[in-house]
């Protein structure tokens, strides 16, 4: 076990996993609270256009994906505010258009694209030092923001009208929340891939909801469950030689099932 940790790629994967585990778990609370699961899934798929753009112009695909996703998130926030299009339809529009643009851009690039495969299915073991630095700076900044602003964010998500009257700039908060989710999702894609990234936003908070007795404990337990999922998934995937992202997601799901079963058992005994 300790030998593995001496390997630089494993150390980078571990640090990235811990950072993203905390980031996605905290952000997941607001995603669940605002019922934005489809948004996070949509932005993950739409980010393919950013990845493809990076590959096509020989730029870092992570950077281009971050930029494109942030722009798309701002566009979605604007469309939701300024038009009568339902929010799930807005996500559906951007989701499919972004994905389609990505497919077309990829078709201009010939040959095998290892970067593209790692974005589609995630490969935390392939994270480079420069990507880890970028990830670290963004993740720490967002986590700091979430911890500092969670009360105001929670009120905005619960009821924007009450939040406005409490002096919270709701338009700015809506755009900021969308951009933060988009950025976090793109960072998470490096670990879990476009297809699975939403899992770490949804599963830890859904598990913690089963037993948390307050919002603060929900935040704390979501982070703990997320970190256990990431660490156990990372170690298991290396030992079993299985895709890391998928194993992390299944570890999270197993914790959810165990917690759910435990709660049902406890309530049956009580009755």
């Amino acid at each position, binding site marked *: 076990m300790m030998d593995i940790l001496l390997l630089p790629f494993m150390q980078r994967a571990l640090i990235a996993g811990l950072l993203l585990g905390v980031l996605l778990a905290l952000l997941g609370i607001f995603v*669940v*609270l605002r*019922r934005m699961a489809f948004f996070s899934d949509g932005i993950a798929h739409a980010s393919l256009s950013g990845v493809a753009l990076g590959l096509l112009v020989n730029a870092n695909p992570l950077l281009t994906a971050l930029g494109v996703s942030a722009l798309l998130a701002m566009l979605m926030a604007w469309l939701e505010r300024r038009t009568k299009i339902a929010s799930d339809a807005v996500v559906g529009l951007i989701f499919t258009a972004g994905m389609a643009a990505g497919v077309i851009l990829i078709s201009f690039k010939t040959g095998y694209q290892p970067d593209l495969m790692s974005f589609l299915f995630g490969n935390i073991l392939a994270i480079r030092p420069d990507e880890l630095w970028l990830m670290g700076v963004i993740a720490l900044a967002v986590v700091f923001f979430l911890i500092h602003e969670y*009360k*105001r964010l*929670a*009120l905005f998500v*619960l*009821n924007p*009208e*009450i*939040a*406005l*009257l*409490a*002096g*919270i700039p709701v338009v700015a908060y809506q755009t900021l929340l969308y951009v933060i989710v988009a950025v976090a999702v793109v960072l998470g894609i490096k670990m879990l891939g476009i297809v699975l990234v939403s899992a770490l936003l949804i599963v830890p908070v859904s598990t913690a*909801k089963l037993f*948390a*007795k*307050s*919002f*603060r*404990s*929900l935040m704390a337990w979501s982070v703990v469950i997320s970190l256990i999922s990431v660490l156990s998934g990372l170690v298991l995937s290396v030992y079993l030689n299985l895709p890391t992202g998928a194993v992390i997601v299944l570890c999270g799901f197993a914790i959810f099932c165990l917690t759910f079963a435990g709660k049902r058992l406890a309530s049956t005994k009580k009755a």
Partner: protein
Amino acid sequence: MSAISVKNLSVDYGNQTVLNRLSFDVEKGKLTAIIGPNGSGKTTLFKAILGLIPHQGQVRIFQKPVREVLRRIGYVPQSFDFDRTLPITVREFLSFGALRHWHPSGELCKEVHVDVLMDRLIGELSGGQLQRVLIAQALLKKPDLLLLDEPSSGIDIEGAKAFYDLIKHVNHEHGLTVVLISHEINMVYSLADQIICLNRDLICNGPPRQALTKDVMEQLYGSEVSLRGHEHL
């Protein structure tokens, strides 16, 4: 002095006029009730007053544009939909929008009877308890104006009576201007200083005994609805 001054306020949704050139004033320190049938534009009026929807005409609150006085307004919305399985305690919910130095066992929380609910989850509260929490949330910022959108909907008769007693108390004891939307005409008849009747147009405006005539009631609700005299609560 006017707490709210509305002049020629109109709201259109597409080709449909929802509010048509309303003009009225709400006096400071008074309790005003807005009544009208379903779809008469009551909630739309609140949203226009708060600047939450596009509108024509002029709205002044304490003689200033709404944006400048948002912090002086407490608001209890008509619906408060949220995922009831999310564990948020009353204490936490109140702290989300409160000023920095609020205290859960403070006088206000006792007055509104939410001090005993602090450790309960908001998703587990009854309709009446949740309304009290929402009122406390609105009052914690020490507003000068309180807007309540159908505050007693979903509460039983006893709960509604206790609720209106509470509203009366904050209006009298704290000198707070209160404007509430209500369907309970008999209740607001005995409670309000001023009644504004709405049905897209302004149908009546004034003290209850002068404003709520038989003709006005028929205009609002048809001939089958009547007032039960001056019955008090």
